[in-house]
């Protein structure tokens, strides 16, 4: 599935929740279901420091030339959003990731969590994901 199909899928999932309470409950559920980075990969070097919550992010390039992201956060709501970002961006080529326009965050009403003024590390994580993609892309084109 391509990135936009994945985004549309998430938008559909969230459509049934019309208040923030249900949405947040779903995010908490998502966070519980996904153990997204192994403990041994929660290295200082993988840590994205937000003032509020911490996010760990790990990226590898697999044999098919696709980027595999793994991540985690110590805060559940952040972790829920992290899991959505991973679901959309993992297992795509660096080029696809670089070109991706992430409209789903806005559509499902979680934009505020990615505002530069929220220091939860999510925006920094997203930037870091794009940077990994750029680095891998350069590597592939060498």
């Amino acid at each position, binding site marked *: 599935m391509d990135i936009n199909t994945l985004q549309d899928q998430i938008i559909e999932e969230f459509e049934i929740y019309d208040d923030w309470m249900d949405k947040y409950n779903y995010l908490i559920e998502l966070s519980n279901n996904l153990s997204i980075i192994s403990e041994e990969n929660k290295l200082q070097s993988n840590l994205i420091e937000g003032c509020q919550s911490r996010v760990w992010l790990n990226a590898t390039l697999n044999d098919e030339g696709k980027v595999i992201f793994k991540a985690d956060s110590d805060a559940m*709501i*952040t972790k829920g959003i992290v899991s959505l970002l991973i679901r959309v961006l993992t297992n795509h080529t660096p080029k696809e990731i670089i070109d991706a326009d992430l409209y789903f965050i806005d559509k499902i009403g979680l934009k505020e969590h990615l505002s530069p003024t929220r220091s*939860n590390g999510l925006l920094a994580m997203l930037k870091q994901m794009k940077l990994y993609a750029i680095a891998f892309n350069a590597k592939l084109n060498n």
Partner: protein
Amino acid sequence: MSYDINKIRQEFPILNRKVYGKPLVYFDNGATTQKPNSVISSINKVYKDINSNIHRGVHFLSAQSTDAYENARRVVKEFINAEHIHEIVFTSGTTASINLVAFSFGEKYISEGDEIIVSSMEHHSNIVPWQMLCERKNAKLKVIPFNEKGDLLIEEFKILLSEKTKLVAINHVSNTLGTINPVKEIINLAHKKNIPVLIDGAQAVQHITVNIQELDADFYAFSGHKIYGPTGIGVLYGKEKYLNTMPPYMGGGDMIKTVSFEKTTYNDLPFKFEAGTANYTGAIGLAEALNFVSSIGISNIRAHEKALLDYGTMKLSEIESLIIYGNSNNKTGAISFLLDNIHHSDVGMILDKMGVAVRTGNHCTQPVMDKFNITGTVRASFAMYNTKQEIDILFESLNKILEMFS
């Protein structure tokens, strides 16, 4: 006099606000307080009626602005009962006040091997300036520890005090733990060895009576925005004998007597420490805020906030899985806590959606977090306008959050 909470609340326009359709419960007063109408309209009045650069002006508006600014200084002096008006220096905030002392006192009095004592419950603004000074001068920072309850270990302090100690810098009230520190005792102990003491009063002046002459503090710093006043204005009280001997911090307009490329002479106190165009609007607004606080009476505010603290502590303690950090017998109205093992930012974000504004994180007191081995807390901090009903809302909201995460 009875405490008319409704009348008080009416003075704060922002309290009528709704967030996400819910009435705002503002419990983030430790970060900054809301402003009463009188403060807001005093700022309006400056800009609509008398705005002009102060000092040195020969014209009408300038005289009016200057009078209002210098009157603000008198209001501050009386509010904290300082001895002399020229011991009141306006700065841009507590942080600037402390940095001023760290630089100017440091230049004059600190040399290699000297020691400065702080505590491990200080705000970063009362740690980092001293670290920077110590690095510059090759001096040493010594730290008074505190116990599980959140009380400073005075016996440890006594041991740290030595001939090497050149300054003690302590907060009057901890912004994270709410502890009211025994600053009078600390000052007495230091003074016995002729060591001056700086008190970071950022979390004190708005909650408890501060009497500089009684305390005998050598320096006292606070911020306007935390005591119902404007942003961008703060106060440094300093004893004449120190301010007179310290070199200036910033150079510029108003802080000099004469300037030539051969020789520049500095102005008298307090102007020596007020370089550049002062934030006179801020000072005038701050004076209005202090007058507002005085009109209600700081001891009445204290009684009201103490009642909120007791009630809040009681209610929150009903939640079994809730841990309160900071349990001193001598506290202001700030409750730091963690709910079950839910991350503080999750609690804060969901409380927000329920209309309750709290602060989460390390509250710029990372050493306090390290001490308890946590990454942050949720902090509800009270002001004169908060109510028990608001604490009930907090209590119910926390229970709902517990359900969400169960």
